[in-house]
């Protein structure tokens, strides 16, 4: 029934690896950005990819997708072979960091989702009940039925985010990469999107890797985390990674992890030289509030 080359969710039951990154290196503009990043992600996991501006989150995601050639290391997706230049569309859903959709685009939300299904195909799209059903199902799964027939460029940021997630997931890839999908959303919309992604991971067994600079909006749903700093990664279950000793190692100087009212603050000791180009000094991955 399914198309060849399309990895569906749950290829090997509980614990099957959806993504394995080994000793990945990336160089941009002559500068090393990733310096040996390794982690693995099982089917159905919701993993946060946390790092400050310029830490290399986008670079890591694009390298996993094959949009950028690695300078070394391997990426293994699903049960498939290590990623080289792949033939055909990759079995990975992707929501890029910035998708600027012109308000005048003659494209309804459902048209954009349909392009996620077969946008790479040659020839005119023939109307087919099966295609329409798949698109409708996906629109329903992300709660976008209400605005499915509106111009996608005129939807709000949160509505567009839902449509983009549907676009990325409509082929039922085993792995979904989202690059800072919460950055332009108010806390309420961010919480809704995070809850939606948590449901998709649990119900559809999609492995989700979501980048963010703040860990807090993800805390309720996320069960794995990859912290990125200085070209390296610390990864694992949240409780095992978001700890003073682990993050001190990663950042290369002493940091404390404070848990206040269910929120996490990563606090750098005074005098600590935070490798944070944005320069908001002492709080990394948390909010100063």
């Amino acid at each position, binding site marked *: 029934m399914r198309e060849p080359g399309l990895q569906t969710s749950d290829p090997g039951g509980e614990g099957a690896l959806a993504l394995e990154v080994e000793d990945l290196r990336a160089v941009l503009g002559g500068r090393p950005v990733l310096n040996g990043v390794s982690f693995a992600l099982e089917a159905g996991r919701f993993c946060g990819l946390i790092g400050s501006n310029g830490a290399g989150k986008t670079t890591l995601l694009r390298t996993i*997708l094959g*949009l950028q050639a690695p300078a070394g290391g391997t990426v293994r997706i699903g049960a498939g072979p290590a990623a080289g230049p792949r033939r*055909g*569309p*990759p079995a*990975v*859903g*992707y929501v*890029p960091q910035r*998708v*600027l*959709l*012109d*308000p*005048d*685009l*003659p*494209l*309804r939300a459902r*048209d*954009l989702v349909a*392009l*996620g299904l*077969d*946008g*790479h*195909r*040659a*020839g*005119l*799209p023939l109307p087919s009940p099966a295609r329409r059903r798949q698109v409708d199902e996906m629109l329903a799964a992300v709660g976008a039925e209400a605005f499915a*027939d*509106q*111009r996608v*460029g005129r*939807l*709000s*940021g*949160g*509505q*567009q985010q839902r449509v*983009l997630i549907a*676009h*990325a997931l409509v082929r039922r890839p085993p792995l979904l990469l989202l690059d800072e999908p919460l950055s*332009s*959303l*108010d806390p309420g919309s961010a919480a809704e999107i995070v809850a939606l992604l948590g449901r998709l991971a649990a119900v559809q067994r999609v492995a989700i890797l979501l980048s963010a600079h703040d860990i807090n909006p993800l805390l309720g749903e996320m069960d794995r985390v990859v912290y990125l700093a200085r070209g390296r990664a610390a990864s694992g279950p949240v409780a095992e990674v978001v700890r003073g000793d682990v993050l001190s190692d990663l950042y290369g100087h002493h940091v404390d992890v404070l848990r206040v009212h269910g929120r996490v603050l990563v606090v750098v000791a005074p005098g600590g030289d935070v490798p944070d180009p944005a320069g908001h000094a002492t709080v990394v991955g948390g909010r100063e509030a």
Partner: protein
Amino acid sequence: MTAAVDAVMRALFAPGLLASGPVRTAAAVGGGAAVVCAIVGVFTVLRGEAFAGHALADVSSAGGSLSFLLGASPLLGFLGMSALAAAGLEAAGVRRAQGRDLATGVVLGAGLGLAALFLYFDATRTSAGGAAVAVMFGSMFAIPASTAPVAAAVGLVALGATAWLYRPLLLSSVSPDLAAARGVRLGATSLAHAVVLALAVALAAVTVGAILATALLVGPAATGIRLARRPAGAFAAAAGIGLGATWAGIGLAYDSAGWTPAHPWPVSFFVVALIMAVHLAVRGRAGRPAPALPGDGGEG
């Protein structure tokens, strides 16, 4: 039905319109060019490449004027130069919008310079005094009947390639990032669109002229995009507007023979005026200025 159309045509336009050979050729070539330009133009507008389209048309005028000098088919001249310019712009491969505009501007200037040279020779060496006007602003009733089959072939190739590439073109026009992630080869898609654009521009140049080709390429497409919520609607509306304006323009120009002494008015004037009128009417109906910041997703 046919009788009704006939009656309307008779009421609106001077007698003999459809019996005239040049008018039939103009209607066939002009109508075909309008449809091809409308379809290709929707992608061109969505990709933000209207300026590149204009540049191809300007450069094609060098080919058109050269073919007048050599006594060759203008369509082939327009086609050769616009394809060359498209290949050149793609080879330059500038992705950033600003760099692309600069490269386009330079190519455009060089093309018009060549056109100036060839048109000067046209005017001084041959007796083809009307070459400049024909190349730049079109001369639809002067299109030789022998151009029609070549134009039809060019148009079919352009439409066929566009249909073949429809989805990758659409997705990469909407967002190159999404397209790349979906496995679309952006470079190949962009090259294919550039070639198709060159074909459309050559067809427009041979009908409404090189300078006015942009009007045929961008006007109906921009209006169609405003009117429709879905891609198919935008293509249909653009094609309808382009075709309608071209045929009505031909009819009005034929009619205009009696308006002022001596000559009829140029078809290109009517076509462009009608396209503009429809565009303004649609904008007016929408009752609001264009959104200030395209893509500003907003927090709604």
